[in-house]
């Protein structure tokens, strides 16, 4: 009756029931292939089960309603201008209350099934591979943990993945049909997603929120790598843009740890090859960019990186810590919190502090905020450890 929920029942029931459930399940899979593409993520099964449950219920009610309507229309068709209706019954409170029950029950069940599936897929997963997604008119940019940026989304199979989405301009929406995955990419906030890709392969990734002229071209692909192959890909891909670097310079780039190192490295490189310096700068690990901005904007005047208390809280160990504000509110120090602290510092002053920070609204770009976030994250536990 209810393939969606039935399949969720543990297999530890009587074998007969299990068989029945399995055949129901394979029937559902067949039905599903008409409506949705093959599934390739942990999300997909959850969503397909609710979809199929609704599909079966809808089909039943549609068939019932239409069958009754057509039957009545034929059976009770008018046979002439003086024909009379066979009944003039005007109401039956009991009957009407009774037939209000099935819709109520179905609506409650459908709500529950949909909600539970949604909650399961939207909960945070520990130890997820994190990829930053940046959307802009009209392309995608995926930034991997080592700072490498790519136009395609590469993922390991069977490992939890976290995407952090933000936009440079208008609202976009990340849509991977095979994963049943969608989330708006909104400028000025960080939307987050967790999921696990379950099938090696390549899938389309589309923009599904209208964003202008080339909206229908804002498409790229997701590549799900087999076990162990993702890391190999990342190492290889990260190397490629720097491969043209002279061997010793490449070794040096790998050793970069601070903004000062980076500046020195770029200066050295620029003396020999300006173009190469530019491409190396683009590959600058975000933590190093962040550190550079930390100095340029003068954040260091009030925020230390060694845990010492100054005019403002230290950045060391700030990431992910629960903050308590003067007005009693609480918030975990995540991307959104840091962004708001920069744009509207007076809105959430941490208790025991004065709230003297000026706003940086209009002076700092979203990408710069991202870099600052990376920098602050890198100060999570110990002294600065940026880069890879």
């Amino acid at each position, binding site marked *: 009756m209810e393939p969606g929920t039935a399949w969720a029942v543990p297999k530890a029931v009587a074998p007969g029931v299990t068989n029945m459930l399995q055949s129901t399940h394979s029937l559902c899979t067949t039905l599903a292939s008409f409506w949705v593409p093959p599934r390739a993520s942990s999300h997909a099964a959850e969503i397909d089960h609710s979809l199929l449950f609704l599909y079966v219920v809808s089909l039943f009610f549609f068939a019932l309603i239409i069958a009754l309507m057509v039957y009545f229309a034929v059976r009770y068709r008018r046979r002439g201008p003086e024909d009379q209706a066979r009944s*003039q019954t005007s109401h039956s409170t009991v009957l009407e209350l009774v037939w209000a029950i099935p819709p109520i029950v179905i609506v409650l069940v459908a709500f529950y099934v949909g909600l539970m599936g949604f909650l399961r897929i939207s909960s945070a997963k520990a130890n997820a591979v994190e990829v930053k997604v940046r959307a802009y008119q009209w392309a995608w940019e995926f930034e991997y943990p080592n700072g490498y940026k790519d136009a395609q989304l590469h993922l390991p199979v069977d490992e939890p993945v976290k995407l952090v989405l933000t936009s440079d301009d208008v609202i976009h929406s990340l849509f991977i049909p095979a994963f049943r995955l969608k989330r708006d990419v909104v400028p000025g906030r960080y939307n987050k997603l967790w999921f696990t890709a379950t099938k090696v392969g390549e899938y389309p990734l589309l923009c599904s929120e209208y964003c202008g002229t080339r909206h229908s071209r804002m498409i790229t692909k997701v590549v799900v790598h087999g076990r162990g192959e993702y890391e190999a890909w990342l190492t290889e891909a990260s190397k490629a843009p720097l491969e043209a670097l002279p061997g010793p310079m490449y070794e040096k780039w790998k050793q970069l740890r601070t903004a000062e190192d980076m500046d020195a490295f770029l200066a050295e490189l620029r003396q020999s090859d300006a173009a190469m310096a530019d491409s190396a700068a683009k590959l600058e690990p975000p933590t190093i960019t962040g550190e550079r901005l930390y100095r340029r904007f003068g954040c260091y005047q009030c925020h230390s990186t060694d845990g010492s208390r100054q005019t403002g809280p230290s950045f060391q160990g700030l990431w992910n810590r629960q903050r308590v504000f003067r007005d009693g509110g609480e918030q975990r120090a995540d991307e959104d919190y840091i962004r708001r602290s920069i744009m509207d510092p007076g809105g959430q002053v941490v208790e025991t502090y004065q709230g003297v920070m000026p706003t940086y609204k209009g002076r700092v770009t979203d990408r710069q905020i991202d870099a600052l976030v990376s920098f602050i994250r890198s100060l999570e536990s110990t002294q600065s450890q940026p880069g890879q």
Partner: protein
Amino acid sequence: MATSNAQSLTPTVDASPIRDNYLTYRRGVMSWLFTLDHKRIGVMYLVGVLFAFFLGGIFALLIRTELISAGDTLMDADMYNQVFTLHGVVMVFMFIIPGIPATLGNFFLPIMLGAKDVAFPRLNLLSWWLFIIGAIVALTSVVGLDTGWTLYTPYSTGTAAGGSHAMMGVIPVTAGAFIMGFSSILTGVNFIATIHMLRPRGMTWFRMPLMLWSLYATGVIQILATPVLGITLLLLIADRGFGLGIFDPAKGGDPILYQHFFWFYSHPAVYIMILPAMGIISEVVSTHSHKHIFGYKFIAFSSLAIALLGMFVWGHHMFVSGQSDIANAVFSFLTFAVAIPSAIKVFNWLATMYKGSIDLGAPMLYAMSFIWVFTIGGLTGVFLGSLGPNIHLHDTYFVVAHFHYVMVGGTVFAFMSGLHHWWPKMFGRLYSQRGAMVGWLLVFVGFNLTFFPQFVLGGHGMPRRYHDWGPQIMRELGFEAQVNLFGHLHLISSIGSYVQAIGFLIVAGVLVHALFRGRRSPDNPWGSPTLEWTCSSPPPHDNFATAPVVGDPYDMTGLVYDRQTQGYVRRGAGAGSHGG
């Protein structure tokens, strides 16, 4: 004022039809443009909204033609984006929202109530003028508006990079929608006041035809929700014109806030579209089944329930925006709740048909098609209201198919049903049933052919508002199979749209032909017991010479067929209409 003039000029005896009625009461263009007669205003609205429907239909055909093949078929991406925007703007603001209430509602609300006019005839005329002015202002955006009718920020405030968008039209269309919003509010005020104040002796609340209940519920939404749209549009103008930054993240604003404001109106607006449609269906199903409506009170209260619940479901448009899980859960639950009164109505209509004497003419065929398409539209709405499936289906063609099933399928089919039902009353002429049925068949088949494949498209991941379903990049990335599937489904959909277009042209031909060549209609050609059928066809200038006798609006007993006029009369009543 009009009514006092009218009284002295109204014939006191029942005149033969056509000769002396609201159409012939005064002559000349000015007598129309400045009329205070609700019937003439209704007819003027009808001309306006049908023109908008025609215009929006042309845009729709352009869209479908573009999507016949991959790449640029007819126009480039920028042009396409403008065309789908205009299609949405014209259809939503100029056709579907004013569609039924302002045309059939204006014409029939007072007559069905037994009143001589609406409570504020001058305000009614003002509504029409505001509608026309707003429509003209909005249409000046033709030169450049590619934001979609939803005008999402920050795209529409144009602060974003990109530069090439043609968005000259944002302020005109916003101003136009703002003005038309007032037209809608004033109509709502007028209807509510009329129903409260102008019910004649004997017309209790529960003797009102169900059409009036649904117009009342619609009026409530128009008054409560439309001002929010007005405020939102003003804020949008301030953001775009003066860089206020309320919705601009670069200035600390929030683009999602715009979506909340926008849908706070625009979701209830869906019920502004569908409630009057349900009212029509209740009238048509009962009359053409020659049977008392089943479950009057349940239907009446379900209209109010839908209006009330419909105000609190707007957040389901933002399930994937990053809105909190709690908000998502609440909005999902309330969305499901709206399904219940809708389901009750469908069951009651079926029960009305049971053991009836069902006349399968054009009005009933459209009403039955309404039940067909509205059931599909409603059930797929449950898919979208459910949080899990919504993630996958959001902003895909599934959504496009769903709301076209509800709006075109629901509202337009009901509108067609109502037009065929009341056309003889409005213009005193009968149309060719055979021609009307051919038109119906093409519209019904064409409609399903157009929109059903779009459910499948959406399920397979085709996003909305794509100028090109098979861009080169999809092939380059190796997704040939998806592109081919999209291509087949889009082709079927486009063919369906042409079938539909031919159907609507036939419908228009049949109805217009009836105006000039149609047989004179008797006062009550269908055997309906509601009050509008007791006055002549077309109705006299002030509707009723004497106060109508009000009873159960669905009491079929005593209505007998009169061979001479080929219409129905109340047994015991004179040849006239007012029952004594």
